[in-house]
């Protein structure tokens, strides 16, 4: 672990309570400090994931999200503040995360993931989190993560339900294995409580922390679905599609 960055006394103190986590410890914290995580969209789900990752001490966060804060973002986009309505979302997010943990480097991209930025953004991260409200963006992120063999946590919600899976290209099914066509009936505006989107985002952040620190069992080859209407949680095994146009050429 000599190649990992050292913790300063201030960091050791800040993270003291998580250094007590079994199997994590100082080496796990140093791994987080070394890591770069890309978060695609920092709305209800991705914003909460970014907040958890900043609190945990990820070294560098790259946040991609276009547009300005709107009043009706504020029921769920916890990185946005009322005084920032009409100004760029990524600026509000950067400010909030810096206030939470100044040790984390925050890089902001005031664009959503698209054909011209995806390859470059993915190339600079160790793990990516997908939390865009459009399948086109999620499927693009998936293609790029698979091509560059970067782990990807896909986290989604609708109303009181959440879904999550962790993709390790070549080893577990990718998003195109699950959704071999762009879903025709999805609408980009969806019913949401922050309590639900934040739950999904927090679970996604935990997957990222596990992947980077090398603890626990990642949610690979499994789809977690939950419904907070009756608090039912379910994990279903999912399989790679042998003719998946995105990932079938990769071997483990």
């Amino acid at each position, binding site marked *: 672990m000599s190649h990992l960055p050292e913790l300063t006394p201030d960091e050791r103190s800040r993270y003291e309570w998580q250094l007590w986590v079994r199997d994590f410890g100082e080496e796990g914290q140093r791994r987080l400090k070394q890591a770069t995580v890309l978060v695609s969209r920092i709305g209800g*789900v991705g914003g909460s994931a970014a907040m958890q990752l900043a609190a945990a001490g990820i070294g560098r966060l790259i946040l991609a999200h276009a547009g300005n804060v709107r009043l009706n973002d504020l029921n769920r986009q916890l990185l946005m503040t009322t005084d920032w309505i009409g100004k760029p979302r990524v600026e509000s997010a950067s400010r909030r995360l810096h206030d939470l943990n100044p040790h984390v480097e925050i890089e902001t991209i005031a664009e959503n993931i698209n054909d011209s930025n995806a390859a470059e953004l993915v190339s600079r991260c160790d793990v990516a989190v997908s939390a865009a409200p459009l399948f086109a963006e999620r499927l693009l992120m998936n293609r790029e993560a698979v091509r560059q063999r970067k782990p990807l946590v896909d*986290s989604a919600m609708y109303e009181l339900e959440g*879904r999550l899976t962790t993709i390790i290209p070549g080893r577990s099914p990718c998003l195109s294995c699950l959704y071999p066509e762009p*879903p025709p*009936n999805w609408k980009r505006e969806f019913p*949401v409580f922050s309590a639900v989107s934040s739950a999904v985002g927090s679970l996604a952040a935990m997957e990222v922390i596990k992947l980077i620190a090398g603890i626990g069992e990642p949610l690979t080859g499994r*789809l977690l679905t939950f419904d907070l209407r009756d608090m039912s949680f379910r994990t279903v095994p999912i399989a790679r599609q042998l003719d998946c146009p995105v990932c079938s050429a990769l071997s483990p």
Partner: protein
Amino acid sequence: MKLRVQYMAQLRAVVGRAEEEMELSEGGSLADLLNQLATTYGAASSHFVTEARQARPSLLIVVNDSAVSARDAATTVLHTNDVVTLLPPIAGG
């Protein structure tokens, strides 16, 4: 034979319920069930099947505790008391 069908996410609003019992002829397949649902909920048929009446490729389907790919719907034979959960694609962020 009697089956239980559970609907998740947008499908609940589309069909107006979270679950229901369905009657399917003996030896019927998952594709038969989806086509029956497409007929029952005509305006929402695209959630269940394509224009060619094939199982919707992006519909996630769980039979009892196993995920079944839509492409295997025609060869997946259902049995009495099976629980079929239909999860339409969601991407809320």
